[in-house]
Every structure is written in C-alpha cells, then in structure tokens.
C-alpha cells in the first residue's frame, strides 16, 4: 500500500486541529454571493465553494470543525459533507505545508516522466508522497489529471501550475521555493500556452 493510500485511508484526527471554526467577516460576504447562485432549498449545492473558502481561511486545509460548520451552515448531515471533502483531492483533511506540491500522475504525465518528478521531490525534500517536511514548508502529494496534459509533466503548487517540467527544472524549483524566491508559474521552458514545442506551425503569418 503506498503512502497516498494511507493518507486517504483514514480520517485522521489531527493533533493541533483548531477546536472551533467560523467564517470571518470577509468570507461571510463571499458566502452570501455564492449562496445567491442557488435556489434556497438547494443551498447544499454551495458546499464546494464554501469548502474552498473555509480551507483558505484555515491555512490550506479543512479541519473537522470546518467541515461540520459548513455542513450545518448548509443544513446537511455531517457525513454528506465529509463525503464531499474526502472525495476531492483539492480539499485537504490534514494540515499541509506552506507549499503544497501536487504532482500529476495520470497517464499523459506519467508517460512524460512524472515518476521522475516525484522521485526528485522525494529525494530533495526527504519525504514520501502524502507527507509534510518537518519545517512545515512542503507537502507532497500525487493527484489525478489537472488538465494541462499537453505541457506534461506538471505540478500544481497551491494555486499555480508549473508545467513542462523535467527533473532539473523541478529541482531548481524546489530550491527557489525553499529560498522564498519568486518563480514564474506556467511553462518552465517559456512555451506559450499549449503551442507546439517546436514553435507555431500554423497561423504563422500576420502579427499574432
């Protein structure tokens, strides 16, 4: 059983979990906007954006109290909310480091070398998938396709994508993040969007 499995296997009761949660005023305003999108008797539909707000407010993860708070906020049973929280890898039910490195391991990325990316991360950070470094800086996890297969292999760190990776680039990236340096997101080899690696092959005329 790999560590990723171990991580999602059991709901962990986290040691330093907060014992209460409430949306702050700023988020409460956002919650209002979100709720306005759904009919009143269907407000459970708002659970995903609300979880996202809660997760951000809690520093990147959803403690049990926040899950329950959102469930009660939307008038749904706790288990229904927990099902959602545990289904999506975007919700972290355990605390994560400052940088949450999510390596895509789905087929296109895997064929383009995501295993090597994982290895670099593990070696350099000294942790396995599903773990957090002791300094609390990095959490490493494997996720399913993030939708930029053309620029495979790729990772997501917090809200940003870093694509067109190779082991060297990955290693540099970790160093920069460790030293708190700015890294431009998106393609790490200067590719524009998903344009062909060899440069444009069509619409080559004109000023585009």
């Amino acid at each position, binding site marked *: 059983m790999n560590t990723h499995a171990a991580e999602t*296997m*059991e709901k962990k009761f986290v040691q330093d979990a907060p014992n209460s949660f409430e949306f702050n005023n700023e988020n409460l305003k956002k919650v209002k906007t979100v709720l306005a999108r759904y009919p009143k008797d269907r407000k459970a539909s708002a659970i995903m954006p609300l979880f996202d707000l809660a997760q951000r407010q809690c520093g990147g993860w959803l403690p049990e109290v926040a899950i329950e708070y959102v469930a009660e906020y939307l008038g749904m*049973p706790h288990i229904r909310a927990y*099902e959602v929280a545990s289904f999506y890898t975007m919700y972290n039910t355990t605390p994560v480091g400052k940088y949450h490195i999510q390596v895509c391991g789905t087929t296109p990325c895997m064929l383009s070398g995501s295993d090597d990316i994982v290895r670099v991360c593990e070696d350099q950070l000294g942790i396995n998938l599903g773990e957090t470094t002791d300094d609390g800086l990095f959490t490493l996890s494997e996720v399913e396709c993030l939708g930029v297969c053309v620029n495979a292999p790729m990772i997501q760190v917090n809200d940003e994508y870093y694509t067109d990776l190779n082991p060297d680039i990955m290693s540099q990236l970790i160093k920069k993040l460790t030293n708190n340096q700015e890294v431009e997101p998106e393609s790490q080899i200067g590719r524009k969007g998903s344009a062909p690696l060899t440069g444009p092959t069509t619409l080559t005329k004109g000023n585009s």
Partner: protein
Amino acid sequence: MPKLTIDNIEIEVPEGTTVLQAAESIGKEIPVFCYHPRLSIAGNCRMCLVDVERSPKPVASCSMPVAEGMVVHTDNERAKKARNGVLEFLLINHPLDCPICDQGGECDLQDLSMAYGKDCSRYTDFNKRAVSEQYLGPLIKTAMTRCIHCTRCVRFSTEIAGISEMGATGRGEHMEIGTYITKAVASELSGNMIDICPVGALLSKPYSFRGRPWELSNTQSIDVMDAVGSAVRIGSRGREVMRILPRLNEQVNEEWIADKARFSYDGLKSQRLDRPYVRSKGGKLNEATWEEAFDVIAKKISKLDPSTLAALAGDQADCEAMVALMDLMEKLGSPHLDCRQDGSKLEAGPRASYTFNTSIAGIENADYCLIIGSNPRWEAPLINARIRKNYLATGLKVALLAPEVELGYPIDYLGNTPDTLDKILDGSHLVAKKLKAAKTPMLILGQGALSRSDGKAVWALCAEIAEKYGLIHDGKGTPGEHWNGFNILHTAASRVGGLDMGFVPGKNGLGTLDILKKAEDGGIALVYLLGADELDTSKLKDAFVIYQGHHGDKAAQVADVILPGAAYTEKSATYVNTEGRVQRVLQAVATPGEAKEDWKIVRALSEKLDLTLPYNTLDQVRARLVEVNPLFDERDMLQRSAWKSFGRKGKVKSAPFVPIVENYYMTDPISRNSPTMANCTREILGWGQPEGRSGTDG
C-alpha cells in the same frame, strides 16, 4: 406506453419503467448488486448490464428507462461477457474469504461468482486492498474489506431508516463505506442493513461465527416484541434459536424487521423458567413437580372466595392461553380479569375503537397525520418507517402531541399539553384546519395517552375529533373508498387479541389497577399472572401470586407458585396485531426443561380444580376462540370494522403525556434478559457505563 422486445418477447410497459423491471415482469432474471426495489437507484455496480441493440455499449438495466422500440437481450453472449468483466473487476479487491465469512451460503457475490465468475483472475499483480473495520455498534459487525461499494447500506439508512450517518468517503480505490464519527448506528432498523448488504461486509455481531445457513431449520413465524406482528423466519439448530430474519409481508413489515425483533432472541437463553417452583414457608422458591405445584394452587383456591381471585394477562400472552384462562376464571366464578396490564383505558367495545384502522399499508394513502401520546419510532418502528415512506413519497405532514422526539421525518411539534386536544376539537387550533382540509387524515393514539387516569376522556375526545373532521368517511379520499383514520397504536402483541375475546373485567369485575390496589388491602387474595411482568409487583406482596411465564423476571420474584410456560418461539399460537390481523407463531424449538405450552398448563390446572376445560387439542382451543369471536377464524386478513361511537366524555387533564416505552431495547421479559439488548441500551442509548470496547471485536 412504450413497446419493447426483451429476449424476443414483445411487451408493453408503463412509461418510466426501467429495463430491469420490464424484464422482471416477464420473468427474466437479471443479476444485481446495487439495485434494490425499495431503495433509490444508484446504478453503480454494473452487474445488471444487458445488451441493447444499436447501443454501442452494454447498458445498466437497473437505471435505464425503457424506450419505444428497444430490443434488449438479457442473456446473450455480449451481456454475459460484460457481466464476466464486471465480476472480475469486483473480485480484484474482494478477499474471497468465503470459508471464514458468515455470509457464505447466502451471499449474492458468491452466487453470482458461481454464475458469471472466471475460475481465475487476470489481475494477479496487485495486492488486494485492506480496509480497516468500522465500529457500527453492538449489532453490526463489519468486514469492510469485503465491501463492493454498492451503497445499499448508505441508501437504506438515509432513505428508510431516516438517519444520515452512513456514507461513502474517499473515491476510486480509496472509497470506503462508514459512519462519520465512530459510533453505533442509532436506528431501530439498523439490522436490516445486514440483510441488504449483498456480500459479507455487514454482518450480525451476535450471530458471528455461530452457524451456517444450511445447518439451520427455518420456521415461519411472527414477531411479538411489539404489536406490529412482523413476519419473521426463525432459524434454529437443535433446541437453540440461532437467529431471526424478516420475511416478506407487504401489508405489515414489507421486508424489514426492527432490531428488537431481530436481536433479542439471546434473551431466550437466560433466566428461563424450566421447571415449576413453589415458595416455601420460609419464603424460598423451591423446585417442584407439576403435580406439587398444582396441588398447592388447588389447595389455596379451595380456601378462597371466588370474588378474591384475579387474573392478568401480560403483553406477550397468546390468544389460546388467554382464552383458556378466561374460561377458567369464569368457571371459578371470578369476574376480575384484565389483559391491559398497563392500565390502558381501552374497552372491549366496537373493534374500530381499539385497532389501527387505517392499516399499516394504508398509512401510505394518508395525507395528514396527527400523533397523540406516542413515540412510534420506539413503540412500532415499522409503522414509523411507513410514515416516513409516505413522507418521502408525498411529503406527508405530521403533527406530534407527545413528549418531543426525533422521528426521522419533519414534524410539526404541538407541545405536550393534552388539553390541546380540546382546542383541536373546538376548532380554535391550527391543526383543526389542517385536518379539515385533508382528504385522508389519520390520527395515531398511543398507549402513553390511554393509560393515564384520564385515558378514557382522551380516547373519547380523539374519537370526537375523528368524527368531526372527517377522519372516517366513505370515499372522499384519493383511494376513492372507505377511509378510517382513527388508529390505536398498541405496544403489546397480546392486547388486541385479549380485547377481541373479552379478556377484560366481567360484571362488577376489577381492572388491572383496582386488582393491584385490592391486592394490597386484601380484597384480592390470589392473582394469576399469565406472563404479566410490567406491573407494580410491590403491590402483590400480600396476595398469593401464580406466575405462569417463561422468564424469571420481575413478577416471578413475588410469585408463590411458578408455572413454566413457553416463549413465542416454542409454541404454535395465535396473536392479533395492532391492525386486528390474526396471525400465528409456529413452534421453532422445544420448550426448555419441563416447561409446557401455555394453554396446556391452564387446561391441566383446570382438571386439577375439577373444572376441566372442554378442550384437549390445540384445534379444539382454536375452535373455542372462534366460538368466542368468529374473527379468530379470519387469519392474516384485515377486517374492516364498522365505526360506532364509543367512549365517555370527560375532562382531559393538562398533565403532560409520558412515554410508554422508556427504553426501546428492553420492554419485556425476553428483551430484558438479552445481553445484546443490554449492550444496545448502553452503547446506542448511552445509558449506564459505556463499556470499554474489547480489542478483538468491533
């Protein structure tokens, strides 16, 4: 109505029918795991794949509605191959530990693997996943590694039981079924999840590793733990009841039973009375022979005036025993007998005045429900489940005038002041309007309201409400026919039968409460308790008490003579449920020791007293029952009883109703002696010291 062809048979079915239902209607069996006719459709196991012409892929028949001109093959090569594939997938992670699995022999996965499985798997490079166990309380044992994620249990608990505690967490390979926090599933219907789980993931904890289905002999019987009269199948081995499962009865319990019916049978094994006892001068109960016990009784009775003799029938007394005791009392010349040991004020008057007239299945046609002095969830879990079923189907509005409880559907809580009924009757209460507006309104009157000192007034008041607001009518309702929305919810399996035969005080006779009172001051010198335990036995200290029953429970402690009777699993006997449905329990196992069937005991005693009752066989007693009331001949049927006004008006007091069932898990001698029910009381209700969970189980 769309026409389609299934396996070359052309049929026409109503719009919205699924392919699976259409196929079943012409007798084609399609294998399923997740589909269950009483649950919502999930469509997640894919076992029901069929081949539909012009469809590029096989189709999940359980969730595919029929369409005009469809040509379906349920059993061709393509369908079979698709199912082979599904099964191979399901078995990738399944442990295949059938030899040590309690489900073995009655497992859908086992059966379908025989039908569709391959003899080996192509997925040999993978380690099977292991899933940690769930703790679901004292009734359900889990082996979650065997779970195939059909989500039947999740749908059962949310839809039928009305508790959202089970769920599926994680996804893909990491999906797991369980509860949110580790805790016992708090539903009185939880045991049914064991039945609907198609594999051995959810199992009966008390039955675990006790037996194999093919070793058990099955007896079709009726449950007597409440007055619903659920159909059950008693599985026994030798002299031991091994387990109790539900049997299908659409009219009563559909295919569910309540946890007390399913799990209290281990109470049949402890504290049993297996021989007669006689109390010595020194106050000690000594073993005796039947002869000696009868002698003591005969000697005592010969010295007493008939007007000082009394008989009380308990909640699980069967009709045969009651009619025999009733006849004996008549021969003895005493009018003091009662089958209402809780002091209920119901009378043996018109039948409609003491039965559940709407019928259990009829609840589904109600469009308004007023519950008075009752907690149906504890008094009759399956009636509560029907109410919920109606709520789910039509959004039934339910109002509750009783101690506040969580029933599993939204209620309009009216508080707990009985005089609210006056306001409903005079029309000044909001409920009056709702009752008037409803086409098929019903009210449920519980024993909590009827066993009070003003029970008679409450009863009469409710009858007036029923008459005034059209709860009883011919044909203004949706079903378009007779509607009677006046319902008495009984908690005692014996009660309706007792009232049907008139096991109530005769002319100048005393009822339960008076008998107890007189027993204290000497007016009553001898009390014959036919399994009557749930009464204030401290009042019986001075009387000579004969206890005939199966458990050394409350009443046996004050008894002077104990006559060992049979529990409901050990006799063939008649019970009438709260609807007035005459049903039979059948003998599954032998009585322990020298215990005898109850009517036989009374018959034998009558001979000793020189008052020999005129029946020698069970058939003759039953003929006597029919003679007393011809209704006893109409088995398993519902008799519509004509409505006649009844009851006496009186003042309803404002004192709040009190619950008649204080602890669902312990209501009678059997369940009070059941270790499993004791565990439920402790762990589910949280009464008493929480037991430390043992390391080996759960």
